[in-house]
């Protein structure tokens, strides 16, 4: 006969601090912010339920919709540049760093990762100095580049910012790809070599398919990071995301709407509405990854 068990108080004690802090300071604000997006102050200034009105205003009232669609478009461009530049170059660097014949791999790996650990404020200002006309002529001119005030021109400001962000964060895809490449068993590569495959052929035919799960992880991390970006634009272009809102992302639009800027007063419920849209976008991205990408990989049994 087993003795009657005592109520396991120790489990509660172990779980309480984490669950409490996490629920109060993360889950509650997220849910409450979503709730707020369905409210608006009425004529007396009392908060009242308005259904999807705020969302309707955000996408259809010209006071908001112009900026909303603009920020959404800019954010997509920002994300596209990361996917097309950051991740392929990150993969190339990882491929080079995983090659046994390369000397000083740890050394290169550590140095190339350095920008990733710096604060975005520093990175933004460093590049603002380098791209400024005052320094640009001397600094970039000597590298054979004719400088233009890229950050100040409407057509080039957003791509320039995206490339600065790529420069900073390339270390992350590089490391994740590197880890996946190192994990590929030697026998597979050796078998391919016996069959007469060469370096580049092995990479595209054998290694790349094997690291597809990492391609998925890198994509979803890039997606979440990009649709949540704020610091770099705020640092280099202020919350106004100039020139003429050319670099306005959802994060800066959210900040301006919530806190107000220049003559426009801050609007918490509309801010919460923008956060709600960002939440939906990120959720869709993550779910697409979980149910689309990952499941297909599992079905094909390509798993590391």
């Amino acid at each position, binding site marked *: 006969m087993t003795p009657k068990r005592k109520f*396991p108080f*120790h*489990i509660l*004690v*172990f*779980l309480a*601090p*984490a669950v409490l*802090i*996490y629920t109060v*300071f*993360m889950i*509650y*604000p*997220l849910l*409450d*912010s979503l709730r707020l997006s369905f409210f608006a102050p009425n004529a007396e200034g009392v908060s009242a339920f308005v259904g999807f009105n705020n969302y309707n205003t955000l996408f259809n009232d010209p006071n908001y919709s112009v900026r909303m669609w603009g920020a959404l478009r800019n954010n997509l461009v920002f994300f596209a540049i990361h996917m097309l530049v950051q991740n392929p170059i990150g993969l190339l660097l990882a491929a*080079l*760093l995983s090659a046994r*014949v*390369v000397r000083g791999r740890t050394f*290169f790996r550590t*140095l190339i*990762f350095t920008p990733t*650990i*710096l*604060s*975005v*404020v*520093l990175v933004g*200002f*460093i590049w603002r*100095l*380098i791209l400024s006309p*005052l320094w640009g002529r*001397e*600094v970039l001119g000597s590298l054979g580049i004719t400088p233009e005030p890229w950050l100040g021109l409407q057509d080039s400001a957003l791509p320039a910012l995206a490339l600065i962000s790529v420069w900073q964060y*390339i270390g*992350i895809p590089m*490391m*994740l790809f*590197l*880890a*996946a490449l190192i*994990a590929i068993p030697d026998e597979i590569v050796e078998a391919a070599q016996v069959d007469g495959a060469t*370096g580049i052929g092995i990479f595209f035919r054998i290694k790349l398919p094997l690291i597809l799960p990492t391609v998925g*992880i890198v994509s*979803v991390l890039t997606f979440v990071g990009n649709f*949540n970006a*704020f*610091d770099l634009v705020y*640092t280099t272009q202020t919350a106004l995301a100039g020139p003429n809102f050319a670099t306005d992302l959802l994060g800066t639009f*959210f900040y301006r709407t*919530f806190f107000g800027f220049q003559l426009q007063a801050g609007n*918490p419920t509309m*801010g*919460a509405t923008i*956060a709600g849209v*960002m939440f939906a976008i*990120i959720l869709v991205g993550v779910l697409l990854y979980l149910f689309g990408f990952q499941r297909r990989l599992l079905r094909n049994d390509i798993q590391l």
Partner: protein
Amino acid sequence: MIKPAPFAAASRTLQLIGMHVLLIAYTCVALFPVVLVVLNSFKARNAIFRTPYAFPTAETFSLVGYETVFERAAFPSYFLNSLIVTVGALVLIFFAGTMAAHALAEYKFPGNTFLGLYLALGIMVPIRLGTVSLLRLIVTLDLADTLLALILVYTAMGLPLAVFVLSQFMRQIPRDLKDAARVDGASEYRIYWLILPLIRPALGTVMVFNMIPIWNDLWFPLILAPSEANKTVTLGAQTFLGQFVNDWNAVLASLTLSAVPVIILYILFSRQLIRGLTAGAVK
């Protein structure tokens, strides 16, 4: 085996050189902006513009930028604030995280899986999206413009990944070890305490992983603790840089001052950080 033809050997060598050249070139791209800033922060104004690539010489050496920074901005106080916030949040993440991870890994209880998933939600959802309500909550709790507010928010932000990684790691600790301690009459709390040293490798990774985003964050200091007395280095540098845009000596000096501590920490902990990044991906 057939001997490789001389042509093949030559092309292999070329390929090898090409790979190294590419890596050296990209390393330069990654480092030149940082080196440029540090180098020029020690130069007089004229030399910054005329010879940006030259090392400071006896003639061009100047600390005028650093003098302005120390006169006009409270960088020592910013550093102290960043240190308090980062260490405070890491200590809380350490205790709350290891305790919760231990409970999830060690005990079978109803809702175990659910709780694990609940805590893991925060890995993918950015806490920033709850800012509107978070600010209200902080004001209600009378924590507005305090470092404690930042510590609590960063703890909530760091816990999901910490609990996830640590509980995975703790599941691999042999049961016999804990059961032996139980036979000897150790309490459940004592067993938790005995396990802690065993998870050191995972713990190092989790801590380094949380440290960098907390130290570098701009958003929450800007919104939750913006007063001069509570500014962190990142926010302090941002405000200072905004005011002194045209004083290049001061800008370069403050950039160097805020980058150096992080770079020193990186040099000290880069092994843990990189090990963490690579281990996480293999799983």
